[in-house]
């Protein structure tokens, strides 16, 4: 290759130019943006530090028995409600994809109803079910007073779990659709029944698509359980409220609750990362894309 011919006044030797030192770009904009954001953040921190918050009270209640038992109830409800939600989600996803029009119609109705009404309303409905059915059970076998059965725990579990099932059904359906139909055909040719194929071949591969949104929904569920405070379920926010009704340390106790929510969500996010890695097995793409470079300011 020959160097480009340069001519005219001021023409330099191309070889000389090609060997000059390259100066890195300075990114003044980035530095400026970072400084502005840092100053604003420092101002907010300072405002809170000087505001009327009794930080020792926060520290004192962080491990109070009522708060810790609320935390346990929050985590337990998250686990049970998600378990119910995922079980219902898989069941209704399979029903929605069924060739049977009755099963399909019923599943579509379920998804339509529980996605179409507010969660808070559903919780109140379950909690007040006794107004509709004073007694429930199986005729001739079991019979209970509804108010005895529909405790805050049961009402919350049903409300959150069934509502979650409607969303999870759509996620699971998307996951199942993402699996190549050739996988099902190959499973059939080695003699698998429909149920075995679903369990051994389709669902494990659908997991790669299902896990990331379910992970997000577990994290949402942790926070969603706080809605149950309106029907007297003793989760962490409810217990924090009970305390501040007595001692008027409203902000301090809300901060206590916030700290615990953040702690639980952080642990779950780490768990989600490893779960996604596990279900990415055999995939060509990784579960998480390499972090994007931030756009220069």
């Amino acid at each position, binding site marked *: 290759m020959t160097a480009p011919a340069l001519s005219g006044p001021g023409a330099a030797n191309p070889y000389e130019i090609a060997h000059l030192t390259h100066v890195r770009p300075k990114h003044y904009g980035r530095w400026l943006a970072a400084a502005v954001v840092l100053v604003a953040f420092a101002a907010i921190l300072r405002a809170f530090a000087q505001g009327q918050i009794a930080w020792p009270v926060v520290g004192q209640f962080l491990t109070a028995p009522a708060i810790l038992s609320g935390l346990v109830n929050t985590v337990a409800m998250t686990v049970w409600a998600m378990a119910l939600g995922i079980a219902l989600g898989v069941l209704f996803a399979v029903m929605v994809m069924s060739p049977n029009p009755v099963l399909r119609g019923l599943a579509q109705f379920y998804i339509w109803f529980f996605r179409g009404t507010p969660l808070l309303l559903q919780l109140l409905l379950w909690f007040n079910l006794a107004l509709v059915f004073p007694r429930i059970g199986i005729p001739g076998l079991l019979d209970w007073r509804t108010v005895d059965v529909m405790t805050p725990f049961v009402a919350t579990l049903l409300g959150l779990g069934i509502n979650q099932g409607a969303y999870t059904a759509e996620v699971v359906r998307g996951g199942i659709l993402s699996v*190549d139909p*050739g*996988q099902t*055909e*190959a*499973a*059939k*040719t*080695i*003699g*698998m*029944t*429909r149920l*075995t194929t679903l369990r*051994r*071949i389709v669902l*494990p*591969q659908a997991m*790669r698509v299902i896990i990331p949104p379910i992970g997000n929904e577990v994290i949402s569920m942790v926070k969603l359980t706080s809605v149950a405070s309106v029907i007297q379920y003793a989760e962490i926010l409810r217990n924090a409220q009970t305390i501040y009704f007595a001692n008027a340390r409203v902000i301090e106790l809300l901060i206590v609750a916030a700290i615990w929510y953040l702690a639980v969500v952080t642990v779950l996010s780490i768990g989600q990362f490893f779960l996604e890695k596990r279900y990415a*097995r*055999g*995939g*060509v793409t990784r579960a998480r894309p390499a972090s994007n470079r931030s756009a220069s300011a």
Partner: protein
Amino acid sequence: MTPMIVALDVSKHFGPLKALDGVSLEVARGEVVCIIGPSGSGKSTFLRCLNQLERIDGGAIWVNGELIGYRREGDRLHPLSDREIARQRLASGMVFQRFNLFGHMTVLQNIIEGPVTVLRRPRAEAIADAMALLEQVGLSDKRDSYPAELSGGQQQRIAIARALAMKPELLLFDEPTSALDPELVGDVLAVMRDLAKGGMTMIVVTHELGFAREVANRVVFMDNGRVVEQGPPGTLLSTPTHARTREFIAAVLP
């Protein structure tokens, strides 16, 4: 001896489309039959009917003397249950154009999945068999790879091993080399040639007329959902009777 396959007047509709229009075919035990024909001729559909990936809506098919997909009650044929159909499918193994290896399983897991999950065979025994099969298709070193890490030709040889692991009496191949890069076709055909030599009954839907000429006992030409003509490869490929067959062979052969 009972023929491996007897198909009588088989028809199959997809809506208004008549994919199979009265196909009859008999395949003897140990025979290698290649089915050729233009796309849309119904050859793949017919193959898929043989192991009930498609349900036929006319005619009848016997595999190894057993009527498949239906049971006779009086003068009607009633469809069999999912479980019965799954059992009948065990007689045949199938190799797909797109391999369809289970993406979330390693090569070894792919091969032992059927024997362990469906046939309930001891895991150690299934693994020993799988290793022998991997040896047979020349991929022993790939036992712990995932399908996505293999070339198309390697995936297809694993797919053949997976089908063989079920010890089928009959192997069905649906255009097994059509999705492969040309330089990988040879390895797959070599494995198939060995199987044919070993006496396996094979029905191969293919565009590889060279393979058909060399390995097949009989070549069947299909068009428009019908069997147009069939015969020994030497005869059918060199001196076909029907004009439609001549046209097709002239168009396919280089």
